[in-house]
């Protein structure tokens, strides 16, 4: 299939349709409004549902309602809008409803800025909503990867009956790159008749399905949470993903970086390599589950002296990196925020200043 040059937001929109998701509810917010603008004409073309809701709060519940009725549905938003969706995401996690959410991160906290950031890492992986619900979080580094992750997100959400988030940033959303849309993704058979409110007549049964997260009996609530926990453990065993870069060298420094930030790091690594300095990169592709073991193994190598967590935030992923490293090597955060993207030169200077390199 020929590649098409597409803006990230539009590619994400198209990817959902190619994944068989014909339902989209959203609210405008920079830097992802182009998703809604694209789907406003594209969804009717494919006979799908498009609705701009009145707020992210309302939209998050439209997603919940539609998903609980057993159809593929997704939404896109950006940091402040995602905060507004927290409650609904908690409800979806508690009620085990599959849905796909895309966060095109912008600067924060508060109204922040409209330029890219990676400052919603902790929100997505640790604190998206009250209670013991978690999101499966994927982080693309290119528009092509964003397309693939969006298409994989739907069957993953259905496999786990859990919301799945694609954590992109404004760079992914706004830049144009060549993409092609894979058409051979495997999908799990849908089990929706077991739980969805899609009408007893359509299921051919007499027993209603109730989608709920209220368990007033403490034992039942604990059991529900144990069920959720077991799912998250299964995610860790079956669906954790990461990319290794230059890890077959004698790297003195290991960088952990994700998303578009990792591409800047790769450029720096390539330039340093040409100067005879070896640096390795571990790029998490799933942020939850976090590739703890892969990072630990990479850091444990004798030649590795130090680990950097380089992110467009004030130090969020670094906590998971420290946890993964388990103290076997020193860990340091480097980052910039609010739309300032570290340059390859900055990364190179950072590395070259290290005693381990000298």
């Amino acid at each position: 299939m020929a590649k098409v040059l597409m803006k990230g937001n539009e590619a994400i929109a198209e990817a959902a349709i190619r994944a068989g998701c014909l339902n989209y509810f959203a609210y405008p917010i920079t830097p992802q409004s182009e998703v809604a603008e694209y789907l406003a004409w594209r969804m009717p073309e494919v006979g799908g549902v498009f609705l701009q809701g009145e707020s992210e709060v309302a939209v998050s519940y439209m997603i919940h309602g539609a998903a609980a009725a057993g159809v593929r549905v997704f939404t896109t938003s950006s940091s402040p809008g995602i905060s507004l969706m927290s409650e609904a995401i908690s409800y979806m996690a508690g009620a085990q409803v599959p849905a796909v959410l895309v966060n095109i991160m912008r600067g924060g906290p508060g109204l922040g800025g409209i330029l890219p950031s990676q400052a919603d890492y902790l929100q997505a992986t640790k604190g998206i909503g009250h209670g013991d619900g978690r999101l499966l979080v994927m982080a693309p580094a290119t528009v092509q990867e964003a397309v693939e992750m969006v298409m994989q997100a739907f069957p993953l959400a259905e496999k786990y009956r859990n919301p799945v988030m694609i954590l992109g940033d404004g760079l992914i959303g706004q830049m144009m790159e060549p993409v092609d849309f894979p058409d051979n993704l495997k999908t799990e058979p849908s089990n929706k008749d077991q739980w969805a409110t899609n009408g007893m007549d359509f299921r051919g049964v007499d027993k209603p399905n109730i989608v709920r997260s209220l368990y007033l009996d403490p034992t039942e609530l604990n059991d529900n949470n144990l069920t959720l926990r077991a799912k998250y453990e299964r995610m860790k065993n079956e669906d954790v993903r990461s990319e290794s870069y230059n890890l077959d060298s004698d790297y003195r420094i290991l960088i952990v970086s994700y998303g578009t930030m990792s591409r800047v790091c790769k450029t720096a690594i390539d330039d340093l390599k040409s100067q005879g300095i070896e640096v390795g990169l571990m790029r998490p592709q799933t942020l939850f589950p976090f590739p703890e073991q892969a990072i630990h193994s990479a850091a444990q190598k004798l030649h590795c002296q130090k680990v950097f967590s380089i992110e467009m935030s004030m130090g969020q992923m670094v906590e998971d990196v420290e946890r993964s490293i388990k103290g076997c090597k020193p860990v340091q955060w480097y980052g910039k925020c609010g739309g300032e993207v570290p340059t390859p030169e900055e990364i190179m200077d950072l590395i070259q200043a290290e005693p381990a390199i000298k």
Partner: protein
Amino acid sequence: MAKTFQRPQCLTDRPTHYCPGCTHGVAHRLVAEVIDELGIRGRTVGLAPVGCAVLMYNYVDVDFQEASHGRAPAMATGVKRVRPDLMVFTYQGDGDLASIGMGEIVHAANRGERFTTIFINNAVYGMTGGQMAPTSMPGQRTTTSPFGRKPDEVGMPIRVSELLASLVTPGFITRQSLIKPKHINKAKKAIKQAFEYQMENRCFSFVELISTCPTNWGMTPVEAVQWAEENLLPYYPLGVYKTPEE
């Protein structure tokens, strides 16, 4: 004159957790009867509120989703837009619909979403123990208005039916009451009409039901009916405020 009377098919025989004399039980029965009479149980989805009726799915035996506080109209929008063949209704109290959920109900009504809302107006927050609601009356003592609601501090009660009827988008908006048998019979007709509009895919339909809350009003059920008649009905007149034909 003699009549027979039975529990509707899709009302379970589970004893309800509602207080003695609470008109939720009446409202549930009317909704269940309408679902039976229209033969739509197998394709109906209810959205239960956060409020005393949070466990409505234990009583009305259809597919149900639990909504968060105030957001049932948004969830119903999601369900109905992706599965327009399903009959979708929300059932909400005055805290749920007229306070936190005001945005969602206004926008759903304004978009003309093709679902039905049953709005239980009993001028108080029931489940959480009797706090003031946007629909509480001036001078009404509640746990958060212990000296009586003061309009010059917190404004006058909101008349939701009139508010929604002021939207230009066509809809069926009516206020009925559950406080006495004659009213209940009219309320049933209104609920059925509301669901019929949905079956025709005609418009958004909304039935406000003046109800009692004996426990949080601090009265017996019979006293509560009296209080509702004297204090709620004059401020919240019964009637049809909008039909799609207008």
